[in-house]
């Protein structure tokens, strides 16, 4: 399998951190700006495809990736089940209760007619279980898409499956 030219490698090295940061930004600010868990995870999945193409068949530890993926999904289900403490499955029990972790309140925005339109400035730790679920789904989607890309990449590049 012919090696990628050093130009591609250096560009990937430079842009890896930037794209990764951008993906994390999209995940963490899911409840404030457009984006969210799935979108950010897909961006980082694309980054893994770039890395795999640039540096050839890489020995990724599949066990670690599967563990990350499962923890993401379990945290997602966990927050859903925790909502049961207040009687409803998937109830946002942290939102708007001024609990310092994720409970801070929006500053309301202005009312037009009787509809409150959101203001742009909102605290990051503001929307309770939505942020937690954003991160959980983000984690899960990152690991899932990386697994798919790595499995198929190894299948195509090396003709057999060596990553363990």
């Amino acid at each position, binding site marked *: 399998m012919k090696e990628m030219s050093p130009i591609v490698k250096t560009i990937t090295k430079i842009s890896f951190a930037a794209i990764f940061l951008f993906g994390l930004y999209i995940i963490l600010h899911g409840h404030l700006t457009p984006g969210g868990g799935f*979108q950010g995870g897909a*961006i980082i*999945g694309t980054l893994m*495809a770039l890395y795999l193409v640039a540096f050839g068949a890489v020995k990724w530890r599949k066990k670690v990736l599967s563990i990350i993926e499962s923890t993401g999904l379990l945290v997602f289900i966990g927050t859903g089940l925790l909502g049961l403490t207040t009687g409803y499955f998937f109830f946002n029990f942290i939102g708007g209760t001024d609990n310092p972790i994720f409970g801070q309140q929006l500053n309301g925005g202005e009312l037009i007619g009787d509809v409150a339109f959101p203001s742009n400035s909102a605290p990051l730790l503001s929307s309770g279980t939505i942020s937690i679920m954003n991160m959980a789904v983000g984690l899960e989607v990152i690991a899932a898409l990386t697994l798919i890309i790595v499995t198929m990449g190894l299948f*195509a590049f090396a003709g057999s499956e060596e990553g363990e």
Partner: protein
Amino acid sequence: MEFFTFLYDALHFMVLFGIVGSALLVVKFKDLVSATIALAACSLLVSLEFFILQAPDVAIAEAAVGAGLTTAILIFAIKSTRGREEY
């Protein structure tokens, strides 16, 4: 102000025709790698179209998955099979 709405509509129609054009290109190309690139262009334009229609979340998802991952997987598939389409 009128000029901007005209520009906006013109951009909107160009993107729509671009989507249809690149989709036709995907079918026309014999060389599969260029067909995949045309497919990536098509999904990029669809993502731009979502953005024009004020749906940024879907635009990000479509751009990342459509242009990024689908193209990567298709190219992996082409790598392990023949590169040209014959019938």
